[in-house]
């Protein structure tokens, strides 16, 4: 697509730029002007208490929700609209779909297609959307399954896989479209604790390969080690953001501090539980 001169992103500029993004549900203001830049190859972790609007913001980026105000650009393209000399026009369904296929999304509850095997789940979009040749799509899907550590499971249906395995298939499914950007919405919070590590490892590998990622997570360890940039949201606004070491170890705002403290207590409780279970 063409980039108009007002476009704030492009080569050498952020892959994602959100400016003053606003969203309400039936008069309930959920996003109150979010600003966020994501550089190419960066991993950005979104932290924040329940109801702060993290999921909503991610869904706005790939247009599962429409925004009421502000603008989002991905790779230089205005998301959801065409800007004709200051007048916005809605994109049609086809153009929306074209924008979405450049963005991979991983859901909290996996949302694999239950009537298809792991391999079919991964092949589906490349074949149906990109028109990739069946044989090539299968080969690529097998490679991706290996990459997420499930090379032996191509024929398994989602119901035959553990939650952690399902989430890794879901990541492979998103990667099969060769997205520029990956969005993760609490990818490990529906998982039993012992399955979280496998999924986080796949995400770490992906980060190491240079994938641009926006990750909503409560895994502080992951945010601290993998993220280049951490954003703390509360009540629909970005309260504070910066390098993980600064935000997590030395938060400036009271709200960030109390949230992190609560997370830490829960982590310790979970660790204590695990230790108790191991002993018992």
């Amino acid at each position, binding site marked *: 697509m063409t980039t108009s001169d007002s476009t704030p992103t492009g080569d050498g500029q952020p892959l994602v730029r959100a400016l003053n993004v606003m969203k309400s549900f039936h008069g309930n203001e959920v996003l109150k002007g979010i600003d966020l830049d994501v550089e190419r190859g960066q991993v950005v972790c979104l932290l*924040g*208490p*329940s*109801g*702060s609007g993290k999921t909503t913001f991610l869904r706005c980026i*790939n247009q*599962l929700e429409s925004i009421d105000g502000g603008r989002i650009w991905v790779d230089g393209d205005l998301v959801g609209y065409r800007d004709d000399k200051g007048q916005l026009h809605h994109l049609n*369904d*086809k153009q929306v*779909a*074209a924008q*979405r*296929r*450049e*963005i*991979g*999304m991983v*859901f909290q*509850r996996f*949302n*694999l*297609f*239950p*009537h*298809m*095997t792991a391999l079919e789940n991964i092949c*589906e*979009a490349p074949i*149906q*959307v990109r028109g990739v040749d069946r044989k090539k799509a299968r080969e690529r899907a097998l490679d991706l399954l290996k990459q997420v550590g499930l090379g032996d499971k191509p024929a398994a*249906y*989602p*119901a*035959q*896989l*553990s*939650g952690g395995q*399902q989430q890794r298939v879901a990541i492979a*499914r*998103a990667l099969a*479209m060769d997205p520029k950007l990956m969005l993760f919405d*609490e990818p490990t*919070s*529906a*998982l*039993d*604790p012992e399955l979280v590590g496998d999924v986080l490892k796949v995400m770490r590998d992906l980060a190491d390969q240079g994938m641009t990622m926006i990750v909503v997570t*409560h895994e502080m360890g992951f945010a601290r080690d993998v993220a280049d940039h951490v954003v703390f949201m509360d009540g629909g606004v970005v309260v504070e953001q910066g390098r993980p070491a600064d935000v997590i170890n030395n938060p400036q705002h009271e709200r960030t501090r109390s*949230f992190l403290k*609560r*997370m830490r207590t*829960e982590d310790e409780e*979970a660790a204590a539980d695990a230790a108790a279970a191991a002993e018992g």
Partner: protein
Amino acid sequence: MTTPTTDDRPGLIDARPVPHPGRWVALAIIVILIAMMISSFVTNPRWDFAKAFEIMVQTPVLEGLVKGTIVGTIGAMVIGIIGGVLIAILRLSTNPVLRGVSFVYTWFFRGIPRLVLLAMIGSGIGFLYSKVDFGVPFGQQFASWLGLSQDFTFFTLNVNQFSSTLLAGIVGLGLSEAAYMAEIARAGILSVDKGQAEAAAALGMSRGKAMRRIVLPQAMRVIVPPTGNEAIAMVKDTSLLSAIPIITELFYQTSAIGNRTLLIMPAFVAATIWYLLIGSVMMVGQYFLEKRFGRGFGTKPTNKRFARPAGAGGA
């Protein structure tokens, strides 16, 4: 009661089952009833099963069975299922005009009895419009205003000829069935988790493709069982085709023979046996369809635990 000491470790379980005397009583009653029925079949000459079997294989009966009943059912169900799914999709569309069209369709065709609908198609419509021209809307009116020789009619259907054919009957039953199938399909589509369509959309699939490839195949699991019901009901409703009137149909033919030969009961028995046979075959078909669309749902989903709700509110 006293708890035994742990030194006395219990072994394998060998327990008597719970007694069910009621089952044995019921079984005895049923056996007696069946014996009485068989004895009446054998001793009452008016049942005359031999004649019933003869009637079953007479040429007009077989012709009626194949054309009116079997072809009629298949045709009406094909129209009904395709039409029903389309109407259900319209009903779930975001376009209020399409939603309205779908609602009115269902309201109308669900509201009128099939017998009345078929009688109307058979004689009423042909009386109102003896022929239907397919062309540019109001083309004939414009042409006569402007005095043109071309009246923009491309194709003419002779309604009087069409309205008494089996095809007209099939279309009538199919239109009526579509109204019921629409509700079944709608329930099926709504039964599929919203996350499925979202996952498809996030992969860049168009809405049509997501519906065809992702949502409908899963909805089929919910759609197939009641559709089997509908199909079996349709087999029986093909007997209404005689209202068109179409007489190449199983029940009309068997009862005609019964009336002519005064073998009234054997004729009914002949029809009953055919209907039961068709119904049985369809149940087998339904079993395989259910298996096909149950793919991936066979094993119980693994226990998904929704761990730790996010930060706030938690102590």
